[in-house]
């Protein structure tokens, strides 16, 4: 057992998933992720080469992990809202290059500098529509230290499967919560990986491309639409072929990705959809009022668990999304399920107060 934060669990998960390259720029509340990597991981005696680069800004960080991934590394970065905004152009580039990368965004109260040390959930839509053009990204969102470890491993695996950017959302609450968990230590992970290397049972790279300079012919990685390794910027057919293949890959993986928790203590009439730090308060509220509320908690926000939600919707009188923003995820779910999903915006200025949230729920459910 070890007593660690969500941020530390992310590092352990990344290491277990085979990550060997981190580039980033410090920003609260994600900074400890970079500190753990540079202090405890890079300096440890590892059986393989690990890399770290503290870049001059987040734009450099995202492009650095893209370059590292092209070169063959398993790379990731961590940031918060303002840095996540700066990374958006690079996220679109990774989608276009088909480069697996993992970006961790620990959310804080915004917009702009906002309240850097306090928790919020304002970046949900930025994970989907933050970059320009038309693209997709998969989003994981744990609500505990143990789950931060597990979902980070899944996120790296998914990045390879979809050959593109995968985002792990955290919030200041999940980043900084300290829990007593049964997770492997850094030494455990190193020795496991060493055994895998020695016995040659390491999982093979699932990415679509060989690392740079290892293929037999030259390749061209470009943000431009390309055809046969050459820029093709005026051929609608080339674009359609490429984007169809690209989106199909996401479609193929959608079923396996959907992941959620349904927490129920009785025949409740209201379904509350919540995630991340905020969802932790719901367990207690439900325990005290089992016939009022059930919790539906997506661990993967995108792709959305639309089918699963539709299949249980008729059990409930009301479906609410409780989130620390003005209704971003409620909008997404409503659009995808066409269900009557109500939004309970709950931006309490960075604090999670169980009394206040209980009152907010009662007020909304009783008036309906």
């Amino acid at each position: 057992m070890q007593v660690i934060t969500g941020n530390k669990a992310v590092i352990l998960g990344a290491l277990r998933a085979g990550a060997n390259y981190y580039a980033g720029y410090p920003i609260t509340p994600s900074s400890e992720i970079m500190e753990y990597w540079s202090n405890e991981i890079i300096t440890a005696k590892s059986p393989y080469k690990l890399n770290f680069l503290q870049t001059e800004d987040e734009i450099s960080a995202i492009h650095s992990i893209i370059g590292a991934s092209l070169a063959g590394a398993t790379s990731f970065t961590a940031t918060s809202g303002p840095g996540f905004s700066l990374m958006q152009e690079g996220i679109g580039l990774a989608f276009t290059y088909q480069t697996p990368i993992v970006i961790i965004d620990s959310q804080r109260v915004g917009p702009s500098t906002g309240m850097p040390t306090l928790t919020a959930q304002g970046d949900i839509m930025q994970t989907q529509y933050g970059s320009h053009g038309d693209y997709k990204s998969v989003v994981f969102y744990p609500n505990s230290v143990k789950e931060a470890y597990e979902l980070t491993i899944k996120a790296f695996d998914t990045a390879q499967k979809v050959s593109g950017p995968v985002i792990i959302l955290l919030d200041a609450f999940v980043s900084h919560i300290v829990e007593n968990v049964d997770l492997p230590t850094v030494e455990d992970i190193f020795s496991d990986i060493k055994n895998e290397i020695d016995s040659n049972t390491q999982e093979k790279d699932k990415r679509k491309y060989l690392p740079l300079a290892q293929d037999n012919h030259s390749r061209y990685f470009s943000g431009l639409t390309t055809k046969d390794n050459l820029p093709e910027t005026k051929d609608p057919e080339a674009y359609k072929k490429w984007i169809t293949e690209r989106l199909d890959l996401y479609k193929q993986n959608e079923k396996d990705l959907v992941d959620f928790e349904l927490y129920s203590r009785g025949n409740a009439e209201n379904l509350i959809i919540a995630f991340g730090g905020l969802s932790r308060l719901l367990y207690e509220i439900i325990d005290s009022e089992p016939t009022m509320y059930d919790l539906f908690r997506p661990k993967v926000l995108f792709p959305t668990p639309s089918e699963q939600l539709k299949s249980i919707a008729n059990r409930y009188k009301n479906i609410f999304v409780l989130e620390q923003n003005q209704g971003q995820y409620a909008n997404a779910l409503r659009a995808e399920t066409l269900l009557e999903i109500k939004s309970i915006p709950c931006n309490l200025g960075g604090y999670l107060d169980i009394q206040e949230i209980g009152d907010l729920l009662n007020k909304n459910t009783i008036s309906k």
Partner: protein
Amino acid sequence: MKIEPILKQNVKPIWCDGCGLYILESALAQVFTEQGYNQKNTVIVSGIGCSARISGYFGCDGIHTTHGRAIPVAEAIKIVRPELNIIVISGDGDLLGIGLNHLLHSSRRDSNITVICNRNEIYGMTGGQTASTTPKGAKTSTAPIGTYDNPVDTKPYIVGNEKHYYARTSITDLNHLKNAVTGGLNWNGFSYIEVISICPTNRGKMMGFANPAQMLMATKNLTQEGNKLYQLEIDYNDNIKTQ
């Protein structure tokens, strides 16, 4: 000299007739061939713009990144795969405008890459807008009565690092250009080569040149007149005091 293997044969560059990039491309192809660079040991990284299209024309893996971000991508590749030759080739709008920040920091970190900048003093691909390198007073499509600001001088930025390799060279002097590039490629650490070049279409027309040859001759004269921004030189220092 045989230069086919390093240049793709099935590609026609997008550059205008008379563009300085043709000269730069062929000079680089000669140097890369002399150095034994090929698909298995070299990666070329570029940003956005006319110059940046060059990464798609060489016969090795080419990476065409977003605007200004070639250096962060290149530096990361070198960290992961130190055995590869990593070369950034891009334009001044890309490297000295939107991406200047990365040039300063990557040279400060002494990342082991070579950066080659095609300095044509204009945003060529987008139609001739003022660049950070456009000389003061020059007319552009966004400065109809002439620019107000001084052009960027990269030399102090690079030689400000105690260990450095800085070259300013020109497409009008092929031998100097090839020497400057060869020196940079063999330099152990960050090397920067600025190549004075021409854009006859979007800069030349505003300067009143009748054809690219006139512009080329005028540029050659500039490099011989003693103006510090056009002086051909190779300035390096690896004599670092150990502490």
